[in-house]
């Protein structure tokens, strides 16, 4: 069902990547995604692409899942590639009426297509091998140094875990309300922009009012169980860095260094 494709990217397997420390995975993937914007050569991108394919194979994910993760960027990919292909000035290789394909255009189009694909591949590796709980815990640990500047890391982590918990619930509720209102004759996705915007009020209002009620109930329930905001809590699962984590840190640094050093083709 569609609910699965929401947060359904994670699939449990006994792969090495699933066993990695979530903190390490988050930091590594984030740094390599930022790093992508500093790689200036296609050969560097080819190296990174091979590396991301290696990671995907290591994660034992299905090929169909990988392609599905590309689906949302497909339009952007096509748009940018065509834009670069036809509107980059330079040496004309091929012309068709007013459209001119230049060699610089081909170069830039390949470059940008690879950048976009790499962005989505690396994010996929993270989300496919890390469960929501691990992601939240890992993220809380990663931002915890910000406590020094009085940034409320616990509050943010609590917000994230509550939000993750409520996404499937709210999604189901939204579907239900949408069906109920459609059966009463509300037309979604029809008419002009203003009509469409207005037609969502019968969907939005019940959702919001339920959200307020839920917040009340949850706050009372948590306070009744002695929850105090910002107080240190113990965890069921302790995260610890093992040898395999150190190995992957080393591997990522190696790949990043190699991809920036390879010569321009």
């Amino acid at each position, binding site marked *: 069902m569609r609910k699965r494709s*929401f*947060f359904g*990217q994670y699939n449990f397997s006994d792969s090495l990547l699933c066993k990695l420390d979530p903190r390490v995975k988050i930091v590594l993937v984030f740094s390599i*995604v930022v790093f992508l*914007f500093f790689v200036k050569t296609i050969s560097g991108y080819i190296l990174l692409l091979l590396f991301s394919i290696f990671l995907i194979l290591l994660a034992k994910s299905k090929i169909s899942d990988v392609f599905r*993760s590309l689906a*949302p*960027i497909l*339009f*952007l990919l096509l*748009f*940018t590639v065509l*834009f*670069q292909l036809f*509107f980059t000035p330079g040496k004309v290789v091929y012309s068709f009426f007013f459209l001119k394909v230049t060699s610089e*255009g081909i170069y*830039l189009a390949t*470059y*940008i297509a690879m950048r*976009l694909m790499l*962005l*989505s591949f690396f*994010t*996929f590796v993270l*989300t496919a091998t890390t469960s929501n709980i691990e*992601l939240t815990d890992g*993220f809380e640990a990663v931002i915890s140094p910000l406590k020094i500047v009085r940034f409320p890391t616990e*509050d*943010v982590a*609590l*917000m*994230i875990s*509550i*939000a*993750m918990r*409520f*996404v499937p619930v*709210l*999604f189901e509720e*939204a579907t239900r309300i949408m069906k109920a209102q459609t059966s009463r004759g509300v037309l979604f996705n029809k008419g002009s*922009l203003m009509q*469409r*915007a*207005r037609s*969502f*009020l019968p969907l*939005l*209002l019940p*959702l*919001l*009012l339920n*959200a*307020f009620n*839920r*917040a*009340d109930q949850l*706050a009372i329930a*948590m*306070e009744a169980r002695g929850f105090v*905001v910002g107080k240190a809590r113990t965890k069921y699962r302790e995260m610890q860095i093992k040898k395999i984590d150190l190995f992957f840190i080393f591997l990522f640094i190696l790949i990043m260094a190699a991809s920036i050093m390879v010569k321009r083709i």
Partner: protein
Amino acid sequence: MDRSGEKPEPTVKSGWKEEKMKRTKLRSIILAGILAALSFVLMRFTEFPLIPAAPFLKTDLGDIPLLIGAVYLGPWYGVAIAFVKNLLFLASGGGSGGLLGSTVNFIALSSFAIVLGSIVKRTINLKRLLLGFTAGTVVMALVMIPVNFWAVPLFLPGITRPALISYLFKINLPFNLIKGALDTITTVVTLTAIKKRNLSI
């Protein structure tokens, strides 16, 4: 009958004040979390392009819970909701923009939320709301010019400077203003509907 002697809404007003005292920090955090989840769900439900010429500039109703959060809970909760919403978006596989799109969206929405939240300051009347929303829209549209000046070349390295500038002022600026205006209308309508029910938020 002469109604001038009557005060129309004393009970409502005192009710608001009383409820405000009851609001705990935990409840605010929980509400913000749920609003972020709602924002994410609505974003997935209702994404539609605004200007036909630029289909990658999308808008959705996901901003409404966020702006409501900024109005009721304060500007920093608005920023936090924007942050969590984009984090969820990334964790769910990311939209068309990926990490960069999420960052740009976060900057836009948090600038809107900060301006709106600090003008409204949790006192909800139409005058302040409209002032806050207008200022928020304008600030968001202005902030997006330098941000896009930085972000667009990362997607389109071949773009020339004049083309970029004409894109920013002819497509991007009107888009953000229309988006802000649409957000203003929908959120104010929703807020009035909530207030009519005399709820305690």
